[in-house]
């Protein structure tokens, strides 16, 4: 009857509860309702029983353990407003606040959720289930009619074998069998994730490989697939060796550890960003060096002008001695290099050279190398940006801030005692802020406060944008003036000394670097004047202001170079080789930027520290402004990318600059700065920096380079694309010539005409791309809904667990005390009769 809780599934009452959701009458959609109903049916007897239990505390079978009590604020169900049942449910649960019997405890302690990671057997069985599921998922998808109809979606279709009677060895065998049947990637990943001892993981892997080898050798492989298998294995092995070698180089391992030990992950992210940029530049240097610089160095072209003598100024201006060297575009020849002829272009190559000599088509090589390096850089950037974005973006933006702060904010890398102290102060402040926020959320600021704040923000923005616009105008007019001066001086051939003329070229870079240094200080002052509600808002505003400044400065400089300098190529002999001139300008900008960074580090950090120590007698040292420094790095890298077309050796210059910058910044930070006193969200900021590197920086550089290749006429007398055509036209002409020479390559020309030049192909490609993006956004929406559903399910499971445990307890109680039962039954019947 009602007292016998029968867990037999064939019991009619229980089966009625397992009907499909189509039957509305038999199913409860609220478990509180179910608990309430059940308790109402047997309410009095339960109450009497529990009173008995409470009156007999000396029963030896009772063990006091933490009871299950729901929190008061818990939402019982999404979308149901059963307040009446809520009250009854709460009442019922308060009755169940009791101690559990030992039998119940034994069952409770072996529940899967309580044994996660605890014992080896439990881990193995958990991972056995996981591998079984993975295998099932990858092998075939069961059709919907295989699943038993059940109202509870959580037990539908799993079919997991839950027999706990298997011994540990048997479980391990089955785990190994499952691991074998997975793909290698999955197997490695699962083995890595298992929280077992290293020695046990090793033995599992060894056993799995052994059995794999046995099964493989037993099957007969054909000789060619056997060979292919071994080749693939060998390749993969060598790739892993290569990767582990690169990793073992441990570039800058100790300095990075010292920085992270003292300053934490925030400052470390700046140095890691520097390291990433260094690798990008090394890659560019390798590609450009091996395809452009080395062939041209081995077969140098004819020297038409006299090489100027070396004065020290070349290192800064890039002109003079460096003017007609491998460093710049103008040096590269526009004909095919032959390995045996070192003569002038005008003299015909010897006939016996033609057939056997290696020829190297310089213009085509230049064109394709630059294109290839930009393309590969683009792919690497987009890949790292998407990976970083995937790690830091969270679909479900619920507010779990406090719990996250408690568990995830301690930075385990920090080692130094003073930094540890600062970190814990930091965390304490953040926790207090969060608590304060929760309390003061209801306090609204008055309208006048809001107005004042709005006015201050508006003023601040107007000031910053005005200053930026003013500086951009100054750069515009000054560059115009310098350009005109240069045109005039080259026409007049005035008696100014060469050195002064060269040094005057440095004026524009110095002005730009000075603006880049001073204006961020103005922005900081403005931000100090305004008061921001949240520190993250302040960081974003300062980041965007600095970004606007740098983008506008670079924009006006690109305009100056690509419109004015390139445009005046035909009028003037000073700009005959305008590409080399632009390359020199970029070299100058890089070097002057480096010098100004050096000076800023010296004055900004060293002098400020001694000033604040001796004059102000404060104990606080300046903090390291991560965002500003990273933006400076991005600015330098944009210049390097812009200059790739005009100065192929510029990556080498950038590599040297980054190496020196690393050591200078490292020593400055260690000596002069202290750990940051404000919170810094590392992964979010890292994602933002990589995005900034990809979007304004790389995109801008590639747009400029594409514009140069497509629209601007190349100079007549220098470079691989001599002649008054654009680079793309010159490239196409070369390809046509190449096809004429080797008729086998006709398909290249066909491919070019039908694929690259056809706008229809681009249109179709863009449409497909947009459709794919739309589908992906729909997938994300669907996943968000699934997350909400799963959370609801977890809450349901919690209710289930409570229900079952109390039922279990009552079953054990009744079994143990039949006498008491009888007495209560008798009294109940008596009451009813009466």
């Amino acid at each position, binding site marked *: 009857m009602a007292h016998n809780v029968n867990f037999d599934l064939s019991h009619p009452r229980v089966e009625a509860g397992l009907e499909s959701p189509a039957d509305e009458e038999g199913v409860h959609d609220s478990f509180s309702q179910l608990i309430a109903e059940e308790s109402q049916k047997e309410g009095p007897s339960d109450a009497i029983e529990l009173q008995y239990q409470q009156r007999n505390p000396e029963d030896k079978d009772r063990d006091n353990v933490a009871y299950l009590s729901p929190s008061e604020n818990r939402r019982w169900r999404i979308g149901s407003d059963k307040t009446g049942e809520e009250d009854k449910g709460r009442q019922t649960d308060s009755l169940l606040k009791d101690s559990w019997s030992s039998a119940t405890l034994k069952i409770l302690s072996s529940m899967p959720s309580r044994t996660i990671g605890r014992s080896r057997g439990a881990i193995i069985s958990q991972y056995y289930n996981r591998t079984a599921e993975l295998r099932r998922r990858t092998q075939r998808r069961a059709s919907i009619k295989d699943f038993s109809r059940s109202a509870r979606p959580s037990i539908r279709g799993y079919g997991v074998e839950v027999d706990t009677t298997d011994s540990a060895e048997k479980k391990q065998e089955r785990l190994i069998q499952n691991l074998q049947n997975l793909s290698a990637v999955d197997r490695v990943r699962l083995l890595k994730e298992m929280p077992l*001892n290293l020695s046990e993981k090793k033995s599992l892997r060894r056993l799995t490989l052994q059995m794999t080898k046995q099964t493989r050798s037993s099957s007969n492989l054909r000789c060619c697939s056997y060979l292919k298998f071994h080749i693939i294995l060998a390749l993969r092995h060598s790739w892993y060796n290569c990767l582990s070698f690169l990793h073992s180089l441990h570039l800058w391992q100790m300095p990075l550890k010292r920085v992270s030990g003292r300053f934490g992950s925030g400052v470390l992210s700046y140095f890691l960003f520097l390291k990433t940029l260094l690798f990008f530049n090394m890659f560019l240097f390798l590609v450009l060096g091996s395809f452009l610089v080395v062939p041209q160095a081995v077969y140098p072209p004819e020297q038409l002008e006299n090489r100027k003598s070396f004065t020290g100024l070349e290192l800064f201006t890039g002109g003079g001695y460096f003017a007609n060297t491998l460093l710049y575009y103008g040096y590269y020849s526009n004909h095919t290099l032959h390995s045996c002829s070192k003569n002038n272009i005008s003299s015909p190559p010897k006939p016996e050279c033609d057939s056997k000599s290696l020829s190297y088509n310089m213009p085509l090589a230049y064109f394709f190398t630059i294109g290839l390096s930009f393309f590969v850089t683009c792919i690497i950037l987009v890949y790292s940006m998407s990976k970083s974005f995937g790690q830091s973006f969270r679909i479900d933006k619920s507010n779990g801030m406090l719990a996250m702060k408690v*568990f995830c*904010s301690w930075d385990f890398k920090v*080692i130094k005692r003073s930094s540890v102290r600062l970190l814990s102060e930091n965390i304490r402040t953040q926790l207090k802020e969060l608590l304060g926020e929760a309390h003061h959320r209801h306090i609204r600021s008055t309208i006048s406060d809001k107005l004042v704040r709005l006015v201050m923000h508006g003023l601040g923005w107007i000031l910053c944008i005005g200053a930026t616009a003013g500086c951009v105008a100054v750069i515009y007019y000054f560059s115009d003036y310098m350009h005109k001066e240069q045109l005039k001086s080259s026409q007049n051939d005035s008696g100014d000394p060469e050195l002064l003329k060269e040094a005057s070229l440095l004026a524009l870079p110095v002005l730009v670097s000075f603006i880049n240094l001073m204006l961020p200080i103005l922005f900081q002052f403005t931000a100090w004047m305004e008061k921001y509600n949240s520190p993250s808002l302040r960081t974003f505003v300062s980041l965007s202001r600095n970004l606007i400044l740098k983008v506008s400065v670079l924009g006006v400089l690109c305009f100056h170079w690509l419109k004015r300098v390139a445009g005046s190529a035909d009028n003037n002999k000073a700009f005959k080789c305008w590409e080399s001139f632009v390359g020199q300008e970029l070299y100058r900008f890089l070097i002057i930027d480096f010098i100004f960074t050096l000076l800023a580090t010296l004055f900004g950090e060293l002098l400020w520290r001694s000033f604040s120590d001796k004059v102000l007698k404060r104990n606080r040292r300046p903090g390291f402004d991560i965002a500003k420094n990273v933006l400076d790095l991005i600015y330098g890298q944009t210049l390097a990318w812009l200059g790739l077309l005009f100065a192929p050796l510029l990556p080498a210059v950038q590599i040297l600059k980054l190496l020196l910058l690393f050591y200078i910044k490292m020593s400055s930070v260690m000596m002069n700065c202290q750990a940051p006193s404000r919170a810094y969200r590392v992964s979010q900021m890292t994602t933002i920096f990589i995005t900034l590197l990809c979007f304004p920086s790389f995109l801008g550089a590639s747009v400029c380079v594409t514009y140069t290749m497509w629209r601007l006429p190349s100079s007549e007398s220098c470079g691989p694309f001599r002649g008054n055509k654009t680079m793309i036209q010159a490239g196409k002409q070369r390809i046509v010539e190449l096809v004429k020479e080797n008729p086998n390559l006709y398909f290249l020309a066909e491919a070019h005409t039908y694929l690259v030049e056809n706008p229809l192909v681009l249109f179709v490609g863009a449409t497909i791309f947009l459709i794919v993006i739309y589908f992906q956004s729909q997938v994300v929406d669907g996943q968000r809904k699934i997350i909400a559903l799963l959370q609801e399910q977890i809450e349901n499971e919690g209710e289930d667990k409570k229900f079952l445990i109390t039922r279990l307890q009552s079953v054990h109680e009744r079994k143990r005390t039949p006498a008491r039962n009888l007495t209560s039954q008798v009294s109940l019947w008596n009451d009813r009769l009466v």
Partner: protein
Amino acid sequence: MRQILHGRYRELAPHLVPLDYTNNPDIKVPMALIVTMPELKENPFRDRIVETFSEDGQGNMSFNDFVDMFSALCETSPRELKTIYAFKIYDFNRDNFICKEDLQKTLNKLTKGELTPEEVRLVCDKAIEEADLDADNKLSFADFENMISKAPDFLSNFHVRI
């Protein structure tokens, strides 16, 4: 990497640890020596970390345990592994749940006991309310994992450099 770790392990107790590990001697370095390592010395959770990774649960680590610890805490360790070990570290009474007392102890270690008891109580209540999904007033592993998956900084913070 293993060589480096062996060197570090040996310098903790040179009289105990032999140079040569080929016959896998059964040596355990006690906890008091391990927490003198510079990477762990100032960490408020150093005792719990060493206890979690030691086989006997008391903090005496063999070389395998030592290697386990640093490989679980390294940069390339997978997220699931780090979550499991973080849960074990924060579970002070080892009952496979993070209850209120565990949270209070974690909080006191984080802030070095500088928060008032009222604030500690508030933070613990609110944290459990936010993260507890199945309404049993403590955090099971599933709750913890769900909360950690929303914190992108966890992977970079839960990392010890050797």
